[in-house]
């Protein structure tokens, strides 16, 4: 014999409220996870939030380039088209008003999350509109996000698209501006450590050997020295550092890591990571570190045959780092 079936209660009891509270608590914890973990990632690490493009009118071609002087800007990893990218670009325009420059060195990754053919407006024209209108030119060191997927014919087409979009001269090339010769190096996989590596290395060796410029500045995406979360690009260092030392390269500008870092002089070469043009990532310090900052930034450099003064500038206009290289006569 079984007893009478248990009576079913349909009313809400205290226990129901406890379960409801549990559900709400889980919801609150979830919201906390979003705020604590995902929001900073989206806001700072990924720069996913939209920003307003700078609306600043600049005097066209306000800079002067002579054989004895040149001013240029440097920015890396700026290709989000987000709020951070706009803030950095806005400060670049403001800095132009005080220190006009005619060239911007792009250290790669100029278009995240898609082809520049589709994103040209938001990653390039919107942030750099005032500078483009002022006639500033852009040169590109190809980054890994230019490859986007993997080394392939499609990836190579994408590199070409980006080079054409900003009017640069090729995947690896050199340009002379005043007393500085810039060597733009393609550090993407096929060009330094891949099948096409020897061709570029041969070119670089010849170009460095032939250079008579007072200052030799190499610009590439992958940092030979970095204390960031990705660390130094050892394969790139192994391939290129001997050339830098042998041929007297003074300064190596790199991105890839999303912070700012300057090394002490290493065998006569100063290495700079300037890769926080839109995204930020944590960093540490190393025995080669002179200055390291996790801040959105870009750089401005003023070079004469004897000195090259560089400043890393944050989005609020504050100088994060300032140093001067002096030519020994």
């Amino acid at each position, binding site marked *: 014999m079984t007893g009478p*079936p*248990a*009576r*079913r*209660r*349909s*009313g*809400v*009891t205290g*226990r*129901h409220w406890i*379960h*409801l509270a*549990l*559900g*709400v608590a*889980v*919801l609150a*914890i*979830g919201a906390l*996870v*979003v705020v604590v*973990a*995902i929001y900073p*990632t*989206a806001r700072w*690490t*990924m720069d*996913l939030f939209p920003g307003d493009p700078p609306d600043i009118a600049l005097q066209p071609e306000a800079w002067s380039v002579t054989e004895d002087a040149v001013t240029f800007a440097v920015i890396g990893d700026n290709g989000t088209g987000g709020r951070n990218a706009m803030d950095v670009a806005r400060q670049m325009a403001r800095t132009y008003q005080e220190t006009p420059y005619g060239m911007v060195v792009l250290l790669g990754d100029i278009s*995240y*999350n*898609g*082809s520049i053919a*589709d994103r040209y407006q938001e990653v390039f024209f919107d942030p750099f509109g005032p500078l483009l209108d002022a006639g500033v030119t852009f040169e590109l060191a190809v980054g*890994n996000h230019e490859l*986007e*997927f*993997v080394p392939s014919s499609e990836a190579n087409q994408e590199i070409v698209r980006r080079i054409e979009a900003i009017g640069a001269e090729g995947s690896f090339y050199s340009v002379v501006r005043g007393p500085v010769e810039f060597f733009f190096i393609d550090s993407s996989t096929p060009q330094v450590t891949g099948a096409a590596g020897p061709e570029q290395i041969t070119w670089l060796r010849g170009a460095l050997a032939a250079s008579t410029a007072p200052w030799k500045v190499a610009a590439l995406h992958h940092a030979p020295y970095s204390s960031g979360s*990705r660390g130094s690009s050892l394969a790139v260092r192994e391939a290129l550092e001997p050339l830098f030392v042998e041929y007297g390269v003074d300064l190596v500008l790199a991105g*890839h890591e999303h912070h700012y870092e300057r090394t002490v002089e290493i065998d006569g070469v100063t290495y700079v990571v300037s890769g926080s043009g839109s*995204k930020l*990532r944590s960093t540490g310090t190393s025995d080669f570190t002179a200055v390291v900052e996790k801040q959105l930034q870009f750089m401005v450099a003023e070079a004469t045959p004897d000195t090259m003064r560089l400043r890393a500038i944050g989005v609020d206009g504050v100088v994060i780092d300032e140093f001067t290289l002096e030519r020994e006569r």
Partner: protein
Amino acid sequence: MTGSRSGGAVAAGVLGGAVSLIVGLVPIVLVDVARRGGSLGTLSTVGLAVMVAIVVAVAVLAGAVIYRAGTAEETGPADVWIASFLTIVVWSVGVLTLVPGLVFLRLTEDVSLNDYGPRLFLEWALVYLVASAAAFFSGRWSLRSLTRAGARRPEAKAVTSS
């Protein structure tokens, strides 16, 4: 079973399934947006279709479980509602926070994006299934707990009165 009870169970089941479906599809839409932007390497349309199929299956399962609970004799409408609520909340939080978080974090890494599609899929499936399992178990625990409490009280009263 009364008509209103059956109708209520159907409504709860459909609602639970629909919420599960919508919440489950949100990360997939995010993934698809990133994929169309070119950031997810070789994650294929077939991969996305499999993800959608898993989400639909879990949503149908959620709806069926909630409906069954709603029509069971020993449970009351309030029990079902609370258990469904807990289930949906736990599951939604898991999927809505963990999966997009995982995608965002992975997107910042510099791994070979050719390998990224399959890896993302595996990570998504793992988190999604864990979130789903946690939701179902918490809902089941909630329902049983409430049902037991509902059944105990009247009997206790009866003993006291005799």
